[in-house]
């Protein structure tokens, strides 16, 4: 087993190997994603957590092949169904979108077409993927999809502006699962929603994904949300993966100093405590120095950290860390 896979490679539904995505600007290349590898098992919920500048939003777009210039995939593989998404021509990628890999984007509820009824937007995906249905079948499908996401059938002939934010996001989930994809990429799906609605939407997503057997990659910055939703969690920093482990183990015993500091900075609802942030700033993705990207802010930094970049290695079963401490 190489460092690129975190699990039995034959069972994985999605495998990302050494993915690199750079933005080519007039001032140089911004290395938004710089060598990320992980696998996703069928039906699994994987979380990718990172702060701004960690590269997490770029990953979502990359997996869906929705990058626009000046961003470009520089290297690496994205293996889905034995096809490499990274190098596949556009017309073939289009066939895979929604059918094999679907996206729930941030603020997606605002990208529902305001002049088209919900049921027509749900059926858009079918039309694009040449699925023929009779009128009766279509109505039944729409009803089924809406029910799956906990919406009443009446919603089908409503317009998006008649729905609340949470309901709109659930329509988006319905669209995402309509063709039963193997992978759902959710990029900060609840960032614009209130906390009560957020819980409802995430539970809807969980139920839907479990029922159709899809795997989910949840990308975000909210550690609490990750703790409640995902099975495995990857911590991103400066375009790289610092740690990836089962979620319970990361929270109970974070191995990477960044993960530990991040968890320690989270305010608790049970007792009042010292509020401790992480001093310093994330490094510029433009001029990357060698060595570990977290070196400048790490309380446990050693000499070797400044010059040599630590590889992502499996320290304990299922626990991968990129740190010289281990």
């Amino acid at each position, binding site marked *: 087993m190489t460092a690129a896979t975190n699990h039995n490679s034959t069972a994985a539904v999605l495998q990302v190997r050494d993915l690199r995505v750079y933005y080519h600007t007039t001032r140089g290349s911004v290395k938004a994603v710089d060598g990320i590898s992980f696998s996703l098992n069928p039906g699994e919920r994987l979380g990718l957590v990172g702060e701004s500048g960690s590269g997490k939003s770029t990953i979502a777009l990359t997996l869906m092949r929705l990058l626009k210039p000046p961003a470009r995939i520089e290297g690496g593989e994205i293996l889905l169904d034995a096809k490499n998404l990274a190098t596949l021509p556009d017309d073939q990628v289009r066939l895979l979108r929604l059918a094999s890999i679907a996206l729930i984007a941030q603020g997606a509820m605002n990208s529902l077409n305001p002049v088209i009824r919900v049921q027509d937007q749900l059926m858009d995906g079918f039309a694009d993927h040449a699925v023929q249905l009779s009128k009766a079948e279509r109505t039944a499908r729409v009803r089924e999809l809406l029910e799956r996401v906990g919406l009443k059938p009446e919603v089908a002939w409503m317009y998006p502006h008649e729905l609340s934010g949470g309901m709109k996001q659930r329509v988006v989930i319905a669209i995402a699962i309509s063709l039963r994809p193997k992978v759902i990429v959710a990029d900060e799906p609840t960032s614009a929603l209130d906390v009560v609605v957020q819980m409802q939407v995430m539970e809807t997503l969980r139920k839907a994904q479990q029922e159709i057997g899809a795997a989910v990659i949840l990308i975000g910055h909210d550690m609490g949300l990750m703790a409640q939703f995902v099975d495995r969690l990857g911590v991103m920093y400066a375009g790289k993966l610092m740690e990836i482990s089962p979620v319970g183990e990361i929270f109970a015993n974070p191995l990477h100093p960044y993960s530990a500091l991040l968890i320690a900075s989270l305010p*608790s609802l049970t007792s009042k405590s010292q509020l401790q942030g992480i001093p310093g700033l994330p490094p510029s993705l433009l001029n990357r120095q060698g060595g570990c990207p977290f070196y400048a802010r790490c309380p446990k930094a050693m000499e070797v950290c400044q010059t040599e970049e630590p590889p992502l290695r499996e320290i304990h079963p299922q626990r991968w860390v990129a740190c010289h401490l281990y």
Partner: protein
Amino acid sequence: MPPLLELRHVTKTFSRGLINRQRTVAVEDFSFAVNTDPASITAVVGESGSGKTTLARLLLGVITPTAGAVLYKGRDLRTLTPEERHTFRREVQVIFQDPFDVYNPFYKIDHVLEVPIEKFGLAHSQKEKRALAEQALQTVGLRPEETLGRYPHQFSGGQRQRIMVARALLLKPKLIIADEPASMIDASSRATVLANLRQLNQDFGISFIYITHDLTTAYQISQNIVVLYAGSVTEVGDVEMVVNQPRHPYTQLLIGSIPLPDPTRHWNPDGQTVQTTAAQPWHGGCKFADRCPHVMPKCQSTPPPLYRTDPRRFTTCYLHEAAPVASDADALAVFAASTPTV
């Protein structure tokens, strides 16, 4: 001594459109008083549409109430003389939510520190001005030599917000209204900004109204809490009581929905009605009635009064009608008597 700021039966309605007037009631018959002695931090917690932003703007005098009055030291804001208004601006400061929008990109960050110094005559020479600015920055933990002389885009959101805290500190106000100061900042800097707020309260005796949707941070730094739903108060009182033993069904729902960073303690999706169709217009009773698992017929017809369920906590819910009905003065007294905890 009248309270520093007070809202007396304030209602704020927003209407849109000339012919078919659509009215949204942001805040409904709301009474609230802020005492700054002793200096305390009061959290106002609510989701979007709860009226918390409108509340902030009413307190700052940026908007005027449709009914009721906003009083500063007993005087209606609308009747203040220019001098009184000037003093008001000095004693009541603000920290806004968006650390990006609040800086004029044309100027260096020194500008946001210099303007209040000049406007309020805090320094009389260039050297004094500089010294004041440096001191304020140092207090919040920023290094003046690395901060002054730079442009806003050269700083992170967290740093910009801390510069704003330094600015608020310059005037040594009695009250700072912090409108979601940490919601647009990364988690790792959020704690630092909130620690700065706490520090201002403890070391400089500045009171805060901390407006947020995040109950967790509200719990961390405040002593008292007001929970808003759709423009009305649902629960109010000592923050430990409200968070650990919530009485109002909405507060319970809110707390149960918080994603705790602990995979072993799951949020609670049951015990609440999920919205499956579009919202219905308000019928006149308790605002939460449509979603409440304990709803009774009278909840739909008349809004419940404020019940004092514990010595330092009140709630507006018929489930607790056995408790004595409280007046706004009672709630006020409770807040005034609160002692700051760590």
